[in-house]
């Protein structure tokens, strides 16, 4: 295959020793020598080896050759491109060579580190270098794409992570649209009484932030609303939001609460009270709700069911009730999006041997949060489900639905500390004996293990064993009327039966039930567990593979309040960074359609998950929007006419690399010579 590039390639090959990391297994001098001789006819002008190519001296070596030998292509054989591709491209750029004319091939992770036979590893390295040389011949100079950034940011989810992100961006002076599905922001944190490990009152630290978010001049707060569509790309997203009808005119409502007081119908509150309490049909989930306007639950409303009642309307002093309100569709242009949609509680009924739903005094963690909450259904009094009896003994079960192949593989991260907090609250409120049944106590954060120490001091009984079953079948005297927790105390190697009055299941955290739809809506991907995937698990934990969309809080994986806040702030910082740049440069790895070759078959149209391919009905050809295209190349591979090509990963480049890797370039020469 001959190069169609007009330019005659002048290629420099640089083979790195990486100390002994590569040189220990690969004869790097031999590789460089071979490249200089055997690939000369392929345009290799110079081939060198050096101790550490990535050092400034190594980079200078390349830069010097570019200038002095007039190199127009560079191949570096060293570590993985994920480590140093940017380093060498920048070095080339600084020497006046377009950075995309530099290719880094890996002979460390892909060769020296995984093999032991030096001869074999050296031969493989030669093939890898040869592949790089053939490939770079087809590279073209590329320029990053520049896209303007709209200064507004949309934040989806008004829990603590979303609130934090909203405040950070708003305080920096940029507009935020905060969308919350429930009537009030606050999320799960608003349901808690105390927060570990300091035992601050959750409401005391959360409500001021909620109020700020509700009143901030730069924040548009949309509660009782959901995102229904997302179009566009980084810097220019168009988001459609459905505002569900509140049946309350927010411009008239003062939040006085008379409607709630007068509403004659009570229903079980499955959301805020976790099913442990009641709310009215017209309601704010809790007194400090933000915004303060109530929501009328149409499904349960007597007026909507039977056509009479209207108590709320009759008593409203400002005539704010409006039964004719309808769903509204709102459209927003934003530059970036932060997703902070949070988590849901594992359904403990799935573990039928734990008896939740059958045994009255088995509670979930969220139920206990409400039970212990001063504003909860019992006013903070810890009682059995009869609402009166104070338990004398309580068992707290860790890892319910977590670390279990039958349910969720992952550790829910917060349950150990949460269970310790519960143990403390039970001690404090009831003086009951408390048994914590755990597999491992995981208290790996600042001041967490100290809290564990404190619980030991308080006399909590710690039993190391995953609970086998919870039953009301009394077997021995003393078990009648109790709930019996059967567990192996693994530290003594014996089965134990703990007769207790109350059991709290520390149920794990799960992705929201609609996580798949959310991922699809925003063009993101989730792991097999259902959590959204970050761009890099360590080095880029809040960005996603979609430019301009970030994730914060538990939507990325189970985490506690401090970590959620940190991620909210981190996501905001990433968004602010882009806003300040006013425009964003994007990797120019994109697909393009040769309009002359396109037959208009539209096969590519449906393949693109980012809707980057438009079809021009008038001309019957497809076109790729470079700002939407993420460069995966699926359309390139699919185009039957060969009309689509991918910059950075073109057919020519890859086919040439195959030739190179199989040393076809050398063999052809040998055939010619013979």
């Amino acid at each position, binding site marked *: 295959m001959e190069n169609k590039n007009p330019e005659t390639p002048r290629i420099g090959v640089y083979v790195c020793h990486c100390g002994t990391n590569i040189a220990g297994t690969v004869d790097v001098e031999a590789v460089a020598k071979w490249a200089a001789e055997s690939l000369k006819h392929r345009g290799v002008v110079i081939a060198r080896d050096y101790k550490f190519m990535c050092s400034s001296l190594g980079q200078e070596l390349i830069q010097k050759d570019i200038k002095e030998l007039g190199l127009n292509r560079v191949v570096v054989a060293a570590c993985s491109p994920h480590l140093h591709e940017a380093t060498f491209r920048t070095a080339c750029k600084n020497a006046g060579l377009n950075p995309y004319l530099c290719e880094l091939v890996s002979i460390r992770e892909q060769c020296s580190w995984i093999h032991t036979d030096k001869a074999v590893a050296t031969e493989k390295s030669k093939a890898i270098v040869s592949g790089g040389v053939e490939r770079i011949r087809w590279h073209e100079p590329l320029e990053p794409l520049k896209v303007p950034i709209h200064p507004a940011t949309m934040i989806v989810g008004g829990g603590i992570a979303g609130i934090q992100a909203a405040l950070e961006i708003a305080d920096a002076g940029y507009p935020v649209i905060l969308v919350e599905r429930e009537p009030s922001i606050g999320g799960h944190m608003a349901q808690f009484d105390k927060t570990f490990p300091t035992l601050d009152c959750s409401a005391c630290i959360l409500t001021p932030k909620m109020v700020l978010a509700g009143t901030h001049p730069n924040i548009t707060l949309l509660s009782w609303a959901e995102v229904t569509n997302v179009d566009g790309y980084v810097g220019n997203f168009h988001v459609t939001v459905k505002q569900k009808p509140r049946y309350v005119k927010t411009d008239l409502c003062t939040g006085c609460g008379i409607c709630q007081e007068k509403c004659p119908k009570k229903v079980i509150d499955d959301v805020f009270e976790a099913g442990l309490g009641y709310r009215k049909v017209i309601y704010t989930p809790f007194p400090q709700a933000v915004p303060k306007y109530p929501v009328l639950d149409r499904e349960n409303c007597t007026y909507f069911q039977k056509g009479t009642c209207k108590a709320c309307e009759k008593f409203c002093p400002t005539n704010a009730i409006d039964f004719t309100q309808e769903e509204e569709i709102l459209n927003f242009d934003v530059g970036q999006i932060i997703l902070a949609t949070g988590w849901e509680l594992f359904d403990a009924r799935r*573990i*039928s*041997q734990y*008896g939740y739903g*059958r045994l009255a005094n088995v509670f979930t963690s969220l139920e206990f949060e409400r039970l212990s909450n001063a504003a909860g259904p019992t006013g903070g009094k810890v009682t059995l489900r009869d609402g009166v009896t104070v338990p004398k003994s309580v068992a707290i079960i860790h890892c319910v639905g977590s670390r279990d192949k039958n349910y969720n593989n992952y550790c829910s991260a917060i349950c150990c500390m949460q269970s310790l907090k519960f143990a403390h609250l039970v001690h404090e409120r009831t003086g009951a004996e408390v048994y914590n049944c755990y597999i491992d106590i995981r208290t790996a954060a600042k001041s967490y293990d100290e809290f564990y120490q404190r619980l030991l001091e308080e006399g909590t009984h710690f039993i190391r064993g995953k609970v086998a*079953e919870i*039953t*009301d*079948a*009394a*077997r021995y005297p003393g078990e009648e009327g109790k709930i019996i927790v059967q567990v192996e105390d693994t530290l003594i190697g014996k089965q134990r039966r703990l007769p207790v009055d109350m059991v709290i299941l520390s149920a794990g955290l799960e992705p929201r039930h609609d996580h798949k739809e959310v991922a699809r809506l925003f063009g993101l991907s989730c792991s097999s567990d259902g959590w959204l995937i970050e761009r890099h698990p360590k080095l880029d934990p809040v960005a996603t593979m979609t430019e301009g969309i970030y994730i914060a809080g538990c939507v990325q994986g189970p985490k506690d309040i401090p970590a959620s806040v940190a991620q909210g702030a981190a996501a905001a910082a990433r968004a602010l960074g882009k806003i300040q740049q006013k425009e964003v440069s994007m990797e120019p790895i994109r697909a393009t359609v040769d309009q002359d070759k396109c037959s208009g078959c539209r096969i590519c149209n449906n393949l693109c998950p980012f809707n980057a391919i438009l079809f021009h009905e008038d001309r019957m050809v497809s076109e790729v929007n470079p700002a939407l295209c993420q460069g995966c190349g699926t359309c390139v591979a699919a185009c039957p006419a060969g009309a689509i090509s991918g910059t950075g990963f073109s057919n020519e480049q890859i086919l040439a690399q195959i030739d190179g890797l199989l040393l076809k370039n050398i063999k052809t020469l040998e055939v010619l010579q013979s």
Partner: protein
Amino acid sequence: MKYGYYPGCSLEKNAASYHVSAMAAIKPFGVEFVELDDWNCCGATEYISLNLMASYALIARNLAIAAKTADANQQIVAPCSACYLNLSKTEKYLTESPSLTEKVNIALKEGGLSYKPGNMRVRHLLDIVVNDIGYDAIASKVTKPLKGLRVAPYYGCMIVRPSLPSQFDDPEYPVTLDKLMQVLGATVIDYPMKAHCCGGHMTQISQATGLELIRQLLQSAADYETDVIVTLCPMCQLNLDAYQSDVNKYFKTKFNIPILYFTQLMGLAMGIEARDLGIGKEFIDARPALAKIGVEVPETAKKKPSKEELPMPKMPEEV
């Protein structure tokens, strides 16, 4: 619908009433069981404790016979939980492991047989009754509902655990038998021990352990004032029934709970006579409980044999 029928050793004699009542109860629904020709014992839980390959070969012989039985429609019904588990588990492991299948086939070849796993559905009798016949069809045939009879459905272990491909109910909190009993008009008690162990072979190996497990079960059912415990496995029936007096002696308790097969109650509700359902063979007399629903069981010759009595002659097979 026709199925291959694997009665298992117990149903030949000890649990003959299970076999008789099952046949009587399914007959009105047009379901036909074709007994596998010259089947052999499944090895219970004992053979696998001694010899792995032999135990798989033993069970595979039955699977091979079933596969050859045209009328079996690639389905085997086992009324005994242990037989069901052994057949189903072997089918699963053979399907998953070609090397195990290869060895088993080398052994089968000695007997002129071979078996290709992957197509056989092994099913418990209860599965056929509740899923293939169905609650609605059964409800339509109930002529004498078990009104007022307090029934404790007892599942035991091996039809609900481990999770095999043939599993049809929850491993911890099964409900199919509960629903069936409700359809028959009984008052079903929801007691926590319904899927716990009946003691299995522990009555033989460590009496104290075995009797304690039986006691726990009887205690829980008695706490809920049950009239009768209904089972679906001959081993469970034998343990709870035959050892009940030993439990009473050992723990100084006074349990007197009859243990019947679910097919027997099904038959009664459908108006079949007690004597045609093998009722009367239990150690714990079921007559007082059944009298509550107006079922009369004809007197059997003997109530309690005394020590002096000589063995009875072998009786002819029941119809």
